[in-house]
């Protein structure tokens, strides 16, 4: 037992630096990707085909190609087009793309859940489309998305382990590295799992609370 605790104690600092990186990549991808998802949700419904088509291509590739493909495309593929990104930047770019693509659908569904009479009411009051969006649709539609977006965010944190393919020393890479030196995979991955769970389980509980709170006024 003390052997296990000692081993955990030794590995923890390394694992934590890896986990910090995982959290950074995930956080940054979500912080950039969700607003981009909102933009895509809007441009996908735009009347202009010059906005709609490029958005559709972005979304379909982001959802259709697997994250592994996106990661390697950005990291190994883009340099041949003259754009070389660090493994951190590549990971953020790929996860951001994926986030934008998936959340655009989540957000679009949320905005569509707002009753049509709401925008009509805004319209007859003389609000312009941007004002209707800002004051009427978004404040009602976005809260509807929050639980789903949080659920998605948890998945993204777990998926961030895939960034090992672009040599990003995040949590899973660190665990692999320690494992290949010590061969104590079992306790190692147990600790890794505990770290992921330490963030994901509280987050799941928060999602449940939010779902109940947000249904208050509606």
């Amino acid at each position, binding site marked *: 037992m003390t052997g296990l605790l000692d081993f955990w104690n030794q590995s923890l600092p390394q694992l934590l630096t890896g986990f910090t990186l995982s959290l950074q990549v995930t956080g940054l991808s979500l912080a950039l990707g969700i607003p981009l998802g909102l933009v895509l949700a809007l441009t996908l419904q735009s009347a202009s085909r010059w906005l709609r088509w490029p958005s559709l291509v972005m979304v379909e590739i982001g959802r259709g190609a697997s994250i592994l493909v996106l990661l390697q495309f950005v990291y190994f593929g883009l340099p041949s087009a003259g754009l070389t990104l660090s493994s951190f930047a590549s990971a953020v770019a790929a996860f951001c793309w994926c986030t934008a693509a998936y959340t655009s659908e989540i957000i679009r569904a949320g905005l569509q859940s707002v*009753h049509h*009479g709401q925008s*009509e*009411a805004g319209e*007859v*009051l*003389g*609000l*312009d489309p941007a004002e209707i969006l800002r004051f009427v649709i978004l404040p*009602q539609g976005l809260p509807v998305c929050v639980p789903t977006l949080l659920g998605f965010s948890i998945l993204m944190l777990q998926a961030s382990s895939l960034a090992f393919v672009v040599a990003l020393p995040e949590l899973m890479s660190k665990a692999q590295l320690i494992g290949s030196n010590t061969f104590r995979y079992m306790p190692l991955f147990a600790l890794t799992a505990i770290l992921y769970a330490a963030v994901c389980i509280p987050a799941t509980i928060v999602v449940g609370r939010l779902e109940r709170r947000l249904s208050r006024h509606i």
Partner: protein
Amino acid sequence: MIEVSGLVKDFGAHRVLDGIDLSVQRGEVIAMIGPSGSGKSTCLRCLNLLEAPSAGLLRVGDVTIDASRPVTRRQRLGFRRPLGMVFQSFNLFPHMTVLRNVSLAQERVLKRSRREADEISRQLLDRVGLGAKADQHPSRCSGGQQQRIAIARALALDPEVMLFDEPTSALDPELGLEVLNVMQELAAGGMTMIVVTHEMHFAESVSDRVLIMADGRIIEQGPSAEVMRNPQTERAQRFLSAVMNR
């Protein structure tokens, strides 16, 4: 005040309005009645361009819309400016307090300051008997209260004409009465109103003129008591006897 000529609305191959001609004087109160599906709501929605008319001319004040020409956003805004609208389902903004519901458009559209807007909103809410509800959310109000808030919200923009689409149909008779009282006061105050309604009492005693619609046309119109008591066409007689005997 309002002049409609040759208004036609098609939904695909289905002609819902088939040549509506209507002129409304300032201060006139018009009740629009008729069987379900006769096109009353569509007519009202064309009047404020929530539906794009397929053909015809619409004039409100000195802005004219010609359905055969594309309408710019500015024309539409200008055309709607003097029109207030009240929906059957209230359509209050559930995420805002009652006060914000009434103040928002004043600030955005009329560029009133928040203080000024809120002050006017409170006066209007008092006028519809709901001053005490200003800081609550609409979900805490009864249907009748919500509809009166919706009326206050429309009045806050100083409309010259108020359009009502079955404002009491979603309400219990008792709650509907609160709303009808507010509308009656508005009418007495000289507001120009077009009211789609199933309230025969309102049509007969409050409105100046009744229009009976059937199959996308106005089949009969005239001074309220006359039309209601003594309809000329057979279709109108049938409709009126059906609703009166209910």
